[in-house]
């Protein structure tokens, strides 16, 4: 058995495999398929201060080796999460991370302050990169000033591990990564979805109700690996890599590029047990290559 444990800030993960927000519900949806306790961590659905209905249907379109979504942060709000969902998931022996979104800085702060009181939530992932909401969301994540402003406010409001999720829809992701790092956050995760669009040619209509949406799946992976490689070598905090990871090989690609941990997203839709297979693959890979500690291969490219 290779050592698969990794650290993000002060937080230890039993292995580097996490699930990506918005693709894994609250974990329980997958409990028929996997042992949630085996996950390094899981990031629950993007949570906002107030209930959000999200965007109208249709919200999804499959594209070659990818999918566009425009869910628009549908969720019942942080208070509902605390009262109705947290009690059901808090005893899962894994790192439970809440993804936080807001339209304004004060929204982010209010959600963070509430989550800070929950013992079993050890970290938050701050979403400054959702492409599917009209206000806030990606708007913060596309400028150094906006990204830093959210990071600063959240850092003050939340005392535990803060991960900031970056948007790939920018000219220079490295400068934004550095701006966020400067505010004292613990980690960066990347990439969120790439802004995309698809048209139903026969009906001459956009496939999504919102016209544009976020592209995920294997189609985005080379872009994600490149961005993780650039960012991981430019900052001094650990990076969590995601974007189109479908199997163990893909996950290791991100780690070699510099990711300390990975998040598995769209692949959960195809194979709800894929995370377990990725953990097993990592162990097997280390044994095959004589690697005693997976940390030894992080960022060697």
């Amino acid at each position, binding site marked *: 058995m290779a050592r698969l444990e990794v650290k993000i800030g002060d937080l230890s993960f039993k292995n580097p495999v996490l699930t990506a927000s*918005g*693709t*894994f*519900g609250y974990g329980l*949806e*997958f409990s028929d398929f996997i042992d949630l306790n085996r996950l390094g961590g899981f990031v629950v*659905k993007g949570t906002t201060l107030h209930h959000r*209905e*999200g965007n*109208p*249907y*249709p*919200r*999804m*379109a*499959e594209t*070659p*080796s990818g*999918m566009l*979504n425009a*869910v628009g942060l*549908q969720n019942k709000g942080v208070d509902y999460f605390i009262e109705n969902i947290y009690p059901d998931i808090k005893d899962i022996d894994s790192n439970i991370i809440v993804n936080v979104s807001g339209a304004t800085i004060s929204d982010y702060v209010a959600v963070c302050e509430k989550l800070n009181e929950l013992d079993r939530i050890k970290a938050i992932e701050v979403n400054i990169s959702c492409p599917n909401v009209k206000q806030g969301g990606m708007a913060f994540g596309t400028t150094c000033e906006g990204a830093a402003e959210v990071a600063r406010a959240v850092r003050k409001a939340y005392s535990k591990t803060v991960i900031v999720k970056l948007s790939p829809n920018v000219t220079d992701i490295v400068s934004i990564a550095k701006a966020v790092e400067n505010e004292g956050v613990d980690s960066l995760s990347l990439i969120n979805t790439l802004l995309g669009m698809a048209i139903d040619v026969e009906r001459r209509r956009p496939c999504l109700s919102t016209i544009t949406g976020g592209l995920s*799946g*294997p189609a985005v992976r080379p872009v994600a690996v490149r961005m993780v490689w650039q960012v991981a070598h430019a900052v001094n905090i650990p990076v969590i890599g995601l974007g189109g990871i*479908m199997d163990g090989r893909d996950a290791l690609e991100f780690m070699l590029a510099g990711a300390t941990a990975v998040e598995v997203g*769209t692949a*959960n*839709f*195809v*194979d*709800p047990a894929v995370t377990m297979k990725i953990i097993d693959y990592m162990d097997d890979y280390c044994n095959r290559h004589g690697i005693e500690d997976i940390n030894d291969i992080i960022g060697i490219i």
Partner: protein
Amino acid sequence: MDFHVVENRHIHELYSLLILKPAEGTLPELMPGQFVQVSIDNSKTTFLRRPISINYVDRQNNQLWLLVRKAGEGTRALCEKSARDTVNLLLPLGNAFSMPGQGASVLLVGGGVGVAPMLFWGAELKRLGFRPEFLLGARSANDILELDEFTGIGKVYVSTEDGSLGETGLITANTILSRHTDFIYCCGPAPMMKAVAKKAREVGATCEVSLENMMACGLGACLCCVENTVKGNVCVCTEGPVFNINELTWQD
């Protein structure tokens, strides 16, 4: 759960009937109205599973029937599967049709590939002592799917747009929909289901429809397949696919 393809019946240029058998063991409990998520491993461009409603469960032979319309790349690839190929299914998913009251008259309405869940449900209703009747609609006689199977269960009314079988016109104009029925179950294209829902209200029938919103996960995680209901946006995969029309915002 892995299944072997026992037979792929190419019943129509646009449809295949896949007869599947578990690679190991027996079928789990499956209810009419539920669906499966089929993994498509032989498509060059798609990778997501495809939600397909359960067409029929043949317990005696431990077989599951899926009626598949070649709607796009993924379903086309699925329809190319042949005997002895393997497909992976997540099942059972979603809710089921509600049981009608004792002795109720029931009409099962299927348009196009929407006939699929009605065969399993009709057979189950008959087994439980009901006398299900069917209304099937399509463009032409040749497009009415599984007519022999339906006829074996109960009386079948038909509408074809070209008049080649049954009444001429859209299924929603069939005279049987103007007769009182206690319970109408309906599956088909959204405009058709909305029109049937309206008819059901007019004749005072309880009505359930099976929606086929586009899905990614099928497990209630991705929130892509939502339908706007009186409770807000809900996942068709977990809260449905079967909805009472009073839960939907189709009141107009």
